């Protein structure tokens, strides 16, 4: 037994005190680490959604639901479909200032095998596509053949397996990187395959199109505007000249999402700050009170020849050890929860939610650890100051 072993001994033997202090530190850690990961995940989700949209203008059929449907698809992964006449594509192509233009086809599977869940099928044009392919290329370089599909990260089907859609087997040739958006729950294939699927569905008696032939329809058109042309002018041009369709700026569509995200982020960071302020006060007060109650113990140590300096180090060490234990516990608990239930959090939020990668997470772990241990150290410093100012002679007289 010597003085160096005393901090650990004290931490172990005064269980209630230790647990109480660690609990406060765990709350501090959880709020900071959890809050940072949460806000970062929301921002990541929005960034990846912006990236995935990758177009300036989106053209949709002009019925009330199509825009809402597209938003639901992007944000929550709720499957949806709508169609408009294919001829619009030619009209749009001829507009001055249009750089790239590509159509997409949406379809919803009646069911897929294994679990009964409807799957969004997105068909794109191999030749003209510029929004999906850059993303697909991260996981699959080849050209999609008929009856081949690429699946979003949320589908548990593996590459090389097949997926049954409308009674037809499709080979999974690629799996996409996670985006945290509704696009993760979709299946991607060529426009031709979607047409085949529509026909297959109609063979099974599931009517998808009222009168048109699958060859005559598209679901949406993505437009990239040439540099130097005003996107808003082109949007209003399209809306003025085509009564059947509605053009929206991709960024406008994201505004409400990013607004909601902004509100949630600031609310969370506000709460984190409040929790920190309160917990920090409680922690410092707790250390202060505890030190006051330990005066006799400190006086006893002074009597046996422990210098003021050593006494301060002793009290500080206790605070730092407790700080380390508390922050490590808090980080493990929060990490386990945030990473295990990330899908649940994302679905409940109805917002794009993408957890940060290893590097960013490590950064947050370090920042949290340092902040919490630092706060522990500050509380320790205050107690240490109080401990060394103990008037030994006065306590001896009491």
């Amino acid at each position: 037994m010597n003085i160096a072993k005393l901090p650990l001994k004290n931490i172990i033997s005064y269980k209630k005190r230790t647990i109480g202090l660690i609990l406060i530190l765990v709350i501090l850690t959880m709020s900071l680490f959890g809050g940072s990961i949460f806000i970062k995940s929301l921002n990541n989700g929005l960034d990846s959604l912006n990236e995935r949209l990758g177009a300036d203008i989106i053209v949709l059929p002009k019925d009330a639901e199509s825009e809402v449907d597209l938003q639901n698809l992007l944000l929550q992964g709720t499957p949806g479909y709508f169609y408009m006449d294919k001829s619009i594509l030619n009209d749009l192509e001829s507009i001055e200032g249009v750089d790239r233009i590509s159509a997409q086809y949406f379809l919803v599977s009646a069911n897929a095998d294994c679990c009964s869940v409807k799957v969004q099928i997105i068909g794109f044009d191999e030749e003209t596509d510029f929004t999906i392919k850059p993303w697909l290329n991260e996981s699959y370089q080849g050209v999609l053949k008929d009856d081949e599909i690429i699946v979003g990260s949320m589908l548990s089907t593996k590459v090389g397996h097949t997926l049954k859609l409308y009674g037809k087997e499709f080979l999974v040739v690629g799996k996409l990187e996670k985006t945290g958006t509704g696009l993760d729950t979709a299946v991607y294939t060529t426009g031709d395959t979607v047409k085949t699927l529509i026909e297959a569905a109609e063979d099974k008696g599931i009517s998808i199109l009222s009168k048109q032939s699958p060859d005559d329809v598209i679901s949406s058109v993505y437009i990239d505007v040439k540099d130097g042309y005003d996107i808003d002018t082109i949007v209003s041009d399209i809306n003025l000249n085509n009564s059947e369709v509605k053009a929206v700026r991709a960024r406008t569509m994201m505004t409400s999402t990013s607004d909601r995200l902004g509100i949630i982020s600031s609310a969370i960071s506000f709460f984190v700050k409040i929790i920190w302020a309160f917990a920090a006060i409680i922690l410092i007060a707790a250390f202060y009170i505890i030190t006051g109650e330990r005066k006799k113990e400190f006086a006893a140590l002074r009597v046996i020849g422990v210098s003021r300096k050593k006494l301060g180090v002793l009290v500080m060490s206790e605070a730092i050890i407790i700080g380390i234990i508390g922050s490590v516990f808090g980080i493990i608990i929060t990490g386990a929860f945030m990473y295990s239930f990330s899908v649940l959090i994302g679905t409940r939020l109805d917002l794009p939610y993408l957890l940060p990668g290893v590097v960013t997470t490590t950064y947050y772990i370090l920042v949290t650890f340092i902040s919490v241990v630092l706060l522990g150290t500050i509380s320790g410093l205050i107690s240490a100051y109080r401990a060394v100012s103990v008037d030994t002679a006065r306590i001896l007289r009491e």
Partner: protein
Amino acid sequence: MTIDAKNILVSYTKNGKKDNTISIINSVDITIVPGKVTVIFGRSGSGKTTLISVLAGLLKPQEGSVLYDDIDLYQQNDDFISDFRSKNIGFIPQGQSLLSNLTIKENILLANNNGNDSDRAEELIELLGLSEREEYLSSQLSGGELRRCAIARALINQPSVVFADEPTGDLDDDNTQIVFELLRQKAKDGAAVVIVTHDESAYNYADIVYRMDGGVLALSDTQK
């Protein structure tokens, strides 16, 4: 080691007001010699505890000096004084002063400055009749056992000076005798022993007797 304290003056200012000063020790001179038991009698509040706190380097007086041979204690910094106290001074405080989360043996060894002199601790535990209690926590001990443990802790480093503050305060007659005998023995071994007490039975063990009253120290007229 001879302690030579000169012109010690300790006072407290009440509520920080200068004109509200209470004098605790008033110009006290005292010399403590090795090999003798010095007993300071006095009622509570007479300034005895404050005086030995000053002598043990725990309280810097407003005026005066404390010399251990040729070392002027209060001319040194806290690190030096603490180290000096640890090595040379055994202090037995009044009341319960053990760390309640440590066992008797751990409490004694905590004060040990040359590593873990387990043998010396065992020896003291044996000597003080605490053998059966060495793995007990201090909360499981009686008042007499606690006091004996505090004495063992004070003696672990073979100090040349021992201060005992009311060492028999809460003890029965048997324990009182054991404690005084032990301190007497320590003096025989060459240490300077200072006992402050209001227990007149200490008189039988004293070589030099002082009486303290209202912060003033005087050699007892019933000097041996």
